[in-house]
């Protein structure tokens, strides 16, 4: 039973971490609350469905193609709709909501509202100490760690990473120091959308594809990011696992209340915020400059 909880918590935590990191990054760098983040995740999933089901290609190629396509799509959408109004944060927020709605509707039109699914990259499961784990779940977990390491390397060791980090810390000064702040934002946008697409590619085989699937992960992801502290990658990582375990605890300890796992996770978030209003690892300085 304990093992079930640990495994289940790790898996769902990894899924949330994948999504939260991207969301957190774009907020930290460009102050954009990208409500459409999980919508990109959904579009990537549909892309894989289309590739595997209608065109008959191998899932791996569909994944790669999907991720690239979603990234391009995200960049174009950003350039067209968000970049011009970046100064008005409220308007940007609504814009991302509208974009998410538009993507939902386009998916609804193209694929109808029926529930669809995508084949796993690796079928089958294996047993660890009596607990059955799907290979795909292990893949998700492994991928999260991989991405985190890659991202850490990018942010800490490369010049681009330096630019992104400095823009995240202080936009105006970074600009003064010669960093093209809007280009840094654009690159970050590309990275986050790519991350969302990657999350879609890896997670979607474990879940059901439908045009409204972007709403639930969005809420959990935002809870994770808030819990961990906006703008803190470490915080998102830790927060993701905390909430993942919270959910696993609910599912196992109260089987009849399994549907409450979302509510419980959100309550955990609120409790933490009561004690520490900037989240676990958030920075408590004056955000508005």
């Amino acid at each position, binding site marked *: 039973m304990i093992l079930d909880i640990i495994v289940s918590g790790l898996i769902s935590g990894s899924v949330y971490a994948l999504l939260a990191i991207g969301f957190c990054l774009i*907020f930290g760098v460009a102050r954009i*609350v990208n*409500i459409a983040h999980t919508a990109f995740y959904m579009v990537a999933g549909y892309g894989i469905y289309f590739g595997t089901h209608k065109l008959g290609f191998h899932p791996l190629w569909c994944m790669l193609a999907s991720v690239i396509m979603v990234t391009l799509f995200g960049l174009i959408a950003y350039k067209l*709709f968000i970049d*011009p*109004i970046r*100064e*008005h944060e*409220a*308007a940007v*927020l*609504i*814009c991302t*909501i*509208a*974009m998410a*709605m*538009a993507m*939902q*509707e*386009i998916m*609804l*039109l193209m694929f109808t509202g029926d529930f669809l699914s995508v084949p796993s990259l690796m079928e089958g499961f294996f047993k660890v100490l009596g607990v059955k784990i799907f290979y795909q779940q292990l893949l998700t977990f492994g991928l999260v760690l991989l991405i985190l390491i890659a991202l850490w390397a990018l942010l800490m060791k490369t010049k681009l990473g330096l630019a992104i980090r400095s823009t995240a810390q202080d936009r105006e000064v970074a600009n003064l120091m010669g960093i093209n702040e809007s280009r840094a934002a654009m690159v970050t946008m590309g990275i986050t959308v790519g991350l969302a697409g990657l999350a879609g590619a890896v997670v979607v085989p474990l879940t059901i594809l439908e045009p409204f699937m972007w*709403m639930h992960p969005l*809420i959990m992801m*935002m*809870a994770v*990011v*808030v819990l961990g502290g*906006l703008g803190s990658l470490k915080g998102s990582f830790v927060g993701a696992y905390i909430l993942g375990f919270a959910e696993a605890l609910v599912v196992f300890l109260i089987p009849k*209340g399994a*549907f*409450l796992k*979302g*509510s*419980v996770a*959100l*309550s955990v*978030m*609120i409790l933490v*915020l*009561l004690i520490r*209003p*900037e*989240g676990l690892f*958030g920075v408590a300085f004056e*955000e*508005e400059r």
Partner: protein
Amino acid sequence: MIMGWLAFYLRKLYSIVRGEILVLPSRVVVVLFCLFLLLLPLFSKDPYMLRILIQASIFAILAASWDLLSGFTGQMNFGHALFFGVGAYTAALLNLHLHVPPWGSIPFGALAAVLAGLVIGIPCLRLRGTYLALTTLAFPIILMGIVFTLPGITGGELGVSGISRLSGSRIGDYYITVVLMLGLTTLMWKITDSKTGIIFHAIREDELAVRASGINTTRYKLLAFSLSGFFAGLSGGLYAHFMRIAGPSTLEVGLSFTVVIWAVFGGIVTIYGPVAAVFILFPLLEFLRFWPEYRTLMFAVVILLILLYMPEGLIPWIRDKIEKQCPRCKLRNVAVRKTCRVCTASLD
């Protein structure tokens, strides 16, 4: 004698209309809008159209209440559906189980929503900006979980049904909601113009400074949450009695988002902006019914385009185009004028 008295007041009315209302196109629009809403049933009793306008009025109250909290006081509330749902469920339950008539259940529903406002206001006191927004998002979801946990009381996904009507007829419903909408939004607007409203606005601009001035911002923030909750709860109760069912759809995230969209689209930190936005967008969405597949998509596209060109919101943009502010006395004038109507300073 009476004729003279009547003539005096008619002349006074005329001079007010000419001096105060007709000078500014925005005021003319407001008056025409009110007249249109109030006199419409004389021209057309089409129940479908009245239904649309009733729902638009209910949502207009909701959107305006959001603006009071999030626009003026700057507390970005992404869970406004909570107040709506609490108001709706409370009114519905009171009506169904205790047989409280609508004019009682709706205010009680609003009071329950005020309590809800305090419940979420207190944790949110220390939060800012996006943290606040995302936390408020969580509350309706938690409440929805509770609703599903107690299906015996709340009816679970079926909701509470069999509630009594607002009034005996569609026209009666229409006038109740429209008059309430006009009254409540005027009240909200007056609040923003009062001392409390100025403090709200100041809290939004710079809370630290307000606190430094010796004002207890906690009390005012809680007041903002409560007032917003009150009005939103009223709209929830009206909704429950009009639709005669109160279900979990009143707590959905989608509704919270839609309220925010309306308000930002219409222009935040005005009260009339969200009201206008609801009356434009809601019938538009219905109107687009003859392209059922593309409806929501077109809605999203319209919003995207409008925000691209008018990021402040639609109504402030329109207002800026048709009115100019006098640099000396700060009063608004019609854009075509060359000199201010009050202080005769040049407007260019």
